[in-house]
């Protein structure tokens, strides 16, 4: 993708989408690049070039099992995205420039296949016994399958 990187982890059957900042940091996770090198690369791309941004990226990448932390102490200091935004003084709109890793578990054939009955949480009518629901029960204020 133009500004993104897709990664498929065949060991865990997970797929990840790295935005521009996360992808840039990930490409530099080669065991040789220093934080300074990464900061320069971020700045060259017009992305927030802060040490905290690199930390956030590595935290996100580590959560997705895309990097291994060399220094466990460093990993303990990773903060949440919200904390990081506050620390960087960024508005929500600017947060899109921060590293984001979105992940999904690749579905099994059965999960991606058609099912004959509606799983829990599917809107249904009428209330009460309902053969369309796998549970056979349609209930709740907003009428969903149990």
């Amino acid at each position, binding site marked *: 993708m133009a500004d993104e990187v897709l990664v*498929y982890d065949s060991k865990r059957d997970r*797929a990840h*989408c790295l935005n521009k900042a996360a992808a840039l940091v990930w490409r530099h996770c080669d065991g040789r690049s220093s934080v300074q090198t990464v900061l320069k690369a971020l700045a060259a791309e017009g992305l927030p070039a802060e040490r905290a941004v690199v930390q956030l990226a590595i935290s996100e990448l580590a959560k997705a099992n895309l990097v291994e932390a060399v220094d466990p102490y460093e990993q303990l200091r990773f903060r949440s995205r919200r904390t990081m935004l506050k620390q960087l003084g960024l508005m929500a709109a600017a947060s899109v420039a921060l590293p984001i890793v979105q992940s*999904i578990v*690749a579905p099994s*054939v059965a999960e991606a296949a*058609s*099912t004959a009955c509606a799983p829990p949480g599917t*809107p249904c009518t009428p209330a009460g016994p309902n*053969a369309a629901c796998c549970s056979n029960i349609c209930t709740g204020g907003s009428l969903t399958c149990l």
Partner: protein
Amino acid sequence: MEDLDSLRWAAGFSFRAYGLKIGFRVNRQGLDSQLKALLPPGWSPSEARVVDHLYSLRLGIPAGHPVVGQFHLAYSGSVQVARSLDLEETLESLASDLRLLVAATAKTGVFVHAGVVGWKGRAILIPGRSWSGKSTLTEALVRAGATYYSDEYAILDARGRVHPFATPLSIRPEGPGRARKTPVGEIGGTAGRRALPVGLVISTRYDPQARWRPKTLTAGETALVLLDNTVAARRLGGTTFGVFKRLTSTAIGLRGPRGDATITADAILQSLERQADCVQRTPRRIADVPSTQSSAASRATQKRLHHRGDGR
């Protein structure tokens, strides 16, 4: 399988579909046309005596016969996929298993669980799991004038184009009851025949309280939506990304809950039309268009369709 092999079979045939060779055998003659009606779109006859997969159908003894054993039985390989007194139900279970087998093991094409329609030379994909409301939205789009491609699978080729898989629509009744297979002609639509580039990928779920105000997805997010509904996702893994990359070079991804299917369908078609206009005029602003256009279209049709029921 050996147990099945030892039984007497009266007829059989083989066919090719999506790079697979599949065989059928049945214990009674004269069912060829009924069985061939179950085959996936795009099949072609084959003379192969050795197949990748074999289906077996044992028709039960008609009701009223003094001999016990009236169930119709269908097997996919050695696995029983149907056991019923109702032949239609048995054949539907067999057809459903056959479509899933093809989707999961096809040697050509990536099968994404999705509704698909064509509109002015572009395809609209609605990937989603069963019961997410995609069939209803597909039906609404066809009723609004779109060309029907599929309400079950989007078949993507290496160039990221979508091919028709126009099986009859599966229309579920408002209340409890089995879905009814409805030929597209019955709802006033026509089926597409040629491959189309994709214009929109819509990730949505029916919510009676919602209004269609989608968020535009990035190309990577759109690819994740597609992979999340790819039948052979685990077998194909990252090899699908090349297809998705080409697909997203012409398509925009939209995500959000939707309310009434008819209102949403009108909004979607209008947004695709505006998108096409924008591509001709200002290609770089294309990503800004869909959400605003669809909201406007939704407002425009809200009054007109106010009393159309739940519209799922």
